[in-house]
């Protein structure tokens, strides 16, 4: 991701802010300007729920460039408590511990580093809920 693009989107990634259509109520993440369901342009910032459950998951063994050091790692499809489904890396658990339906919550992590001199991209991953 380019530095300007990271900067434009960081606030929304850091705080898990998407958009909600004022007409039909559909929620989107990342943010959108036009509702893909009803074509309305009346979208407002919407703070997503930071808790949800694992719907499906997989283990990445051949990761893209700059994610090699994390391999093998888990990526899950998560249904947030407000109904939106998002894809996120799963952390703080071993592959054999992952179960469909498991309760997870957002955790602020490093996503990617542009070498040792570039910027550090932060954002959300999901971990088992700490109660």
């Amino acid at each position, binding site marked *: 991701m380019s530095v300007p693009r990271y900067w434009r989107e*960081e*606030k929304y990634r*850091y*705080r898990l802010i998407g958009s909600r259509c004022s007409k039909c109520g559909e929620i989107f993440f990342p943010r959108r300007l036009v509702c893909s369901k009803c074509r309305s342009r009346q979208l407002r910032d919407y703070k997503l729920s930071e808790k949800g459950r694992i719907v499906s998951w997989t283990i990445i063994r051949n990761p893209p460039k700059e994610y090699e*050091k*994390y391999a093998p790692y888990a990526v899950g499809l998560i249904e947030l408590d407000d109904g939106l489904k998002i894809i996120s890396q799963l*952390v*703080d658990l*071993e592959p054999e511990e992952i179960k469909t339906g498991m309760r997870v919550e957002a*955790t*602020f*992590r*490093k*996503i990617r580093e542009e070498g040792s001199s570039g910027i*550090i991209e*932060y954002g959300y*991953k999901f971990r088992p809920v*700490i*109660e």
Partner: protein
Amino acid sequence: MKTNSTVGILGYGAYVPMNRLKGSEICRIWGGYESPIEEKAVANMDEDAVTISVECAKYALKRANINPEEIGAVYVGTESKPYAVKPCGSIVAEAIGATPKVTAADYEFACKAGTEAFQTCIGLVSSGMVKYAMAIGADTAQGRPADALEYTVACGGAAFIFGLKSNSTIAYLEGSYSFVTDTPDFWRRGLEMYPRHGNRFTGDPAYFYHIIGAAKGLMGELGYNPSDFTYAVFHQPNVKFPIKVARTLGFTMDALKPGLVVPLVGNTYAGSTPLGLASTLDFANPGDRILVVSYGSGAGSDAFSFVVQDAITRDRDLDPPVSRFINRKRYIDYSTYVKIRGKIIR
């Protein structure tokens, strides 16, 4: 030091990464030593002082139950800044929604950087310059392989939100005292990965001299004796030092125990004293008086006297207690430790 208006803690939050490295595992690799602690917390590859700070900050916000836009200052005390130039404070402020009307910066004073941030936040709130101020101590410090410090250097932190004393504050400040000299007991030059230290020099003229100086200074100004405090928190570079300084000053083990997290977490540097205070607040009752004394090499101590208020019983269950983070663990071996702490280069 006393404030113009009485300042209190509105919320606190702690975070300790999940990985644990046992002292016996370090002994297995390097031999010779008996580990000074049982095990230490190690950050994952995707964690650093910023991510730990954000975790703590979000927990503190939940307990404080305030609008983050009203936080006028975010200060991060750390010696493990991910960037040499680019503040952690601004990233944390952005992540919690305190931007853009906020002052933000990082403090560096070895292990007392976190409580140095306390002092500034307390001053800003007391003067009326800001409504709320957040101070964080967090570190992912590094120890040279086979060095004595490798057994204890650990990762973790805690955040505190200060505001004027009210029914919403969980503890209020009675006074503080800072005690600083130029003492070369431990240092790390720019671009160096690991610190150097003066071995035995780290004890009497450094840790004990400054902690005792700050503790006695504060108790003298407030007219208190150790028996006036229910709990005491001292910087925890290992298990021996805080116990010895507590005994020297006349505090009981009962006063020390709730905040003594070092045996199972390690020395979280700038996070150490704040984490000890967070753990003590998990146990404290309204009316309890807590003495908090940090120590940072270079060298100095900040001492604080807090009195716990009624709101503690309402607010503390909003977040997991420090013990929950201590018990949440996954053991790693030394080779995994070397990989995730970036001690080998591919």
